[in-house]
Structures are given as C-alpha cells and as structure tokens.
C-alpha cells in the first residue's frame, strides 16, 4: 500500500446501519477536507461489506463511521471482522456518534482507534487523525 509521507491523508466516512442522522458526519467531512485531507463520504445505509469495499477501492488510511442509533455494539464488531477478513487491519478505524461512556472501552478493545462523541471540536478530530496516520507511516 502506497502511504508515502507526501500523499494527503485519505479517509472514508460512512453511515452504517439504518440510522439517517448525517448532520455530524457531513460537518466532519467538510472540516477534514478543509484540513487538507481527501475525504470520501459513502452516504447512508451502508453495510459492513459496502464500507470495506470503499476502503479498499479508495486505498484509505482511515475509516470513520457514524452511528447515532445505539446499534454500535452490533455494527462495529461486524465491521471490524469484515476489515480483518480483507486484510485491512492497518486502516485506522474511528467511530463518531452517540456512544455511552461505558461502551467506549468495549469498542476500543475491538480495535477502534478513537471514539468521538457529541461536543468533540472539529480541529481535535482532524489533529487526532493526522497524528495517528503520521505515527503509522
């Protein structure tokens, strides 16, 4: 995988499951583009397989999924497994949305790099992604 230090960070953003709350992910997409990243937003109602295909096709460094429906403990394990099956473990997975504090360690144990909950400032999200990708390159 070509992750040269000069290439802009490539990030796939996706809504997985049936949840249609896309205000947050759209705002985040725009902020990351403004921060110089290449953002591919897949749109609504993605399955784990749809998302993994997008990550592969786009050769993404980072995958960000947004879940506000409470189904994260069903959807995220499926997604992590789908990434692993395609050998995409290196892709940093971040989760945004309504995630109760008690569930955050459970998601991190699955391999989620970071969970951003409501109130997370946009610059903080961009900074985390930049640091996390550069440490891996």
């Amino acid at each position, binding site marked *: 995988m070509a992750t040269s230090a000069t290439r802009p960070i490539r990030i796939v953003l996706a809504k997985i499951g049936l949840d249609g709350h896309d205000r947050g992910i759209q705002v985040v997409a725009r902020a990351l583009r403004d921060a110089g990243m290449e953002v591919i*937003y897949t749109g609504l109602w993605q399955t784990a397989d749809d998302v993994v295909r997008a990550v592969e096709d786009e050769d993404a460094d980072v995958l960000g999924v947004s879940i506000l429906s409470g189904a994260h403990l069903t959807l995220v394990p499926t997604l992590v497994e789908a990434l692993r099956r395609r050998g995409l473990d290196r892709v940093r997975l971040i989760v945004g949305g309504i995630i109760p504090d008690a569930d955050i360690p459970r998601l991190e144990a699955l391999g989620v790099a970071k969970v951003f909950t409501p*109130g997370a400032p946009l610059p903080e999200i961009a900074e985390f992604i930049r640091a996390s990708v550069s440490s891996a390159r």
Partner: protein
Amino acid sequence: MPDQGADAPRSPEQAAFERALASAPEREISLTTVSGRKVAPVYLPPDISDEYASQLGYPGQYPFTRGIHANLYRGRLWTMRQFAGFGTPGETNERFKFLLAKGQTGLSTAFDLPTLMGLDSDHANAGGEVGRLGVAIDAIDDFERLFAGIDLGSVSVSMTINAPAAIVLAFYLVTAERQGVGWDKLRGTLQNDILKEYHAQNEFVFPPRASVRLVIDTIEFCTREVPQFNPVSISGYHIREAGSTAAEELAFTLADGFHYVEQTQVRGLDIDAFAPRLSFFFNSHNDFLEEIAKFRAARRIWARHLRERYGAKDPRSWALRFHAQTSGVSLQAQQPEVNVVRVAYQALAAVLGGCQSLHTNSRDETLSLPTLEAVTIALRTQQVAAYETGVVNSVDPLGGSYQLEAWTDALEAEAEAIFAEIDRAGGMIAAVEGGYFRRRIAESAFRYQTEVDAKRKLIVGVNAFAEEEPSSIPLLEIDPAIETRQKANLASIKAQRDRAAVERALAEIRRAAAGTENIMPSLLAAARCQTTLGEIVIALADVLGRYRMGA
C-alpha cells in the same frame, strides 16, 4: 435598528442614547441568535409595522398571528404528548399506560428504525436495531397489542412514521375496527411528511414523486373516511435538528405544506374539505424570542397563502395548528441535569408561541431513550409551565413587543424570499432532486459548528463551564433479547396466516400502485390478512422504485 431616515430629526435623548451605545464596550462572543440573526441593542417603535389589524389582529381571527383561538389556553391547555416507544409492542403498551396514569393527555408513538425504513424485524439489515429507538411493528397483531386496553375512540394517538405511513395508517384503522371503534371517532395524527425526509431526516424508501402520491392518497382517504384525524403533520422539526436556521425551518416546512395542498387540489378535492386537517410540527430551540417569532410568523404566512393564493374560504383552513418539540440537538451529554433547564426555556417558548401540543425532551436523550424518572421530569416541566408560571392566562402575552414584532415580520420576509428560491430551482420536486434543501441545511450546520469551535457561541458544559468530573445519570438499557422475541413473534404470525390471501393482497397492492387509484383500500385488505409491513413495502417498491440520494 433600522435607518430612521436621514431627515428624521433626532431628539437630544436619541442622540445621547446613540453616543452611549457607540462608546459602550460589548462582550466578545457572537451577539447573534442561534440562527446567526444579527440582534440590535434595542428595538424601538419605528422597527415595527403600524398596520395592527392586518399584521396582528385578534387571536382566533385572520391572519392568526396572535393565536388560533380567541381565548387560547384559557379554554383548553395544549395537549401534553410525550413521544414514546421501544422494544416490543407489549413494552410500549406499558409505557403508554404509565404516561396516561401520570396525567399525559395524548399518546405519541415512536417506531424502531427497521419499521421506519419499511423492513420487517427478521430482515438482515435490521440486526441490532429491532426495538431500539422505538417499537417494532411487523403486522396487524403487533398494532393490536400496542393499543391493548387503550380505547382508540377516546385517546388521540400520534404516529411518527413517514415512508411506510400509509401502511401504518391501515394498521391503525384495522386496529380500531377490531376494537369496535368507528373511524369517524378517531383523533390523532400521522406524521406522513415525506418531503422533509429528503430534506433532512433520511428515512425515505420510494422516489419523491411516488412518495408524495402516497401522502396525497392518505389525505384524500382520511378526508372521506376518517374526518377527525390529521393525515399529515408537516414537519420542520427534523429540518432544524439537521442544522437549518429558524428561517429555513419555517420556509421549508411551509413550502412542503403548499406542495401537499397543490397536489391534493389536483385530485379535485375542495381545499376547505381537507386543509382544516393539515397540521404542523415545529422545533422549539434555544433562541427564546426568535422561536416565538417563528411560530407567530408561521401562522401568518399560512393564513395568507391559504386564503390569498389557494382560495380557501373556511377560517379553519387558514388556521395553522402545530405540535412543538423541544430541541434534541441542543441537549448535551456533558452535565445532563442541565438539560432540564434548557428544556424548560424551550417549552416556555413553544407555549408563548401558542402551540396546540408539546413534547418536552428528557435530560438523558443525548445518550439513550428516556428512563421513567427522566420522562416524568419532562412531563412535569410542562405541567409547571401550564399551572404555575401564569403565562397561559392571556393570549400571546408578548405580542406588541418591538423586538418580537420586528422579528416576526423579518422571518415572514425571509420565508417569502426562500419560497422564491424554491420556485427558481424548479419547484418542490426539482429542488429536492437537485439537492437545494440539503445544501442549505449542511451550510447552516457547518456555520454554526464553526462558531462553537471558535467559542463565539458558548454551550454550558461543553465549551464553557466544563466540569472535570463526568456526571453520570442512569440510562435506559434495551435488552438485546427483544430482537429475538420480536423475530419469534413474526415467525409465528407468518406460520399461522393464510399464505394465499397474503399473495392475493400483495398482487392487489401492486395493481393499485401501478395505476392512479387510491392505495388505501388495498393496504387495508392486506393488513386484515396479516401481510407484514416489510412485504407491503417490497410490493410497493416493485412498482414505485427505490430512491438513493447522491452522497
């Protein structure tokens, strides 16, 4: 403040006031509303129209700016209606009975995401979502259990569902049949506003034109058969939650309403036969005076358009009735107890704006569905507004405030400018398909978030006055076994029903959908023989198609 005219002579007092303003320092946060409206330091008589009779008039009279009833809450308070639903129909039925016992005066049903998206509980894409955000409904037996022991002839029921709304209406009507309640006795509201799904909420299935046809079918059917029921609740709530400004919420919602009126008129229905049963649903957000101005402007704009543009003659057609819900997106996960205070101010704005019914959010709703304790506080908040604050004892008590009247006028003018933009975009359907609404909403949402990140807008507990120690409140847990139980229930319904009757019902739905006749009779027949919601949606999609939006 408006320009008072170069020639207007300034009094010594005015000149002194303007000098004082010019030299007075102001705080460094943004002195604008949540929607970005510039706020003058003070509003004065020249800021408002002197056309009292045509702009305001008496409550209960055209243009209804001051309210839709002469005595408003002196006669009857608003309906206190808390949105509820989770788990299986049995669990929601218990919550309904709890709320009625606490003094709630109407029911409001939340459905789970699979139901909202037209999927049965056993669909592969429903995994993890069954019963989580609302109640799971698959077939008519579920609906009957949902309202078991609740007399549909005496309680008004609101149902928040859109893409499959016509199907849910059929389930509701058949449930009434089974209870022995005549359709003419049914009161309540079906949300059934598909246009805002494309603008903001994203729970659509069929393409826009076909979806609007289903909405008009329900309006037409209810006008004839269910005369006391509101077949559509034209909703700005979700548009606002998605990030629009107050003016955009107002204008997009009313434009949606105009589109339904026009499409129903095309069917040959007299406007005064159906317009009195159209109802609205607005957000009551943080910016107190701007929200009250928005509600007042909504009434005036609707009255003017219905009378002047669409030729309605019945005053009930002119009067805009609305439900309000406090703003979910304004609630914060940090220091959640503070949400009780936000909700109280927002509820007061809705009451001062003359709402007909109100849902107050619970303090824990940024994290989960509300616990019983949280929902009780939310309901009590409305009861304090109604019985203790005294604001209910006169109609539109803030009417005549220079600022409120100036903003009511401004919001009306801004809405008219947006209507003209929608026309220029080719009308409602072309504007939906071209992404006009979504672009504007996304732009406003981004602008607001940028203000928050820059701390030009402060949010208590988030970017100001944060606490080190996270506070924790108890949250409602949804038992994962609910999904298993609901799927077992569906399997038993499918095993016991008459499969041939279901196939005939689905064929009839396809036939009706392909033509121009009203879809409702075929949906009622399908409901009666236990056809599932998911099966009906598939049959409709076979004919009407499915809609995906460009990312």
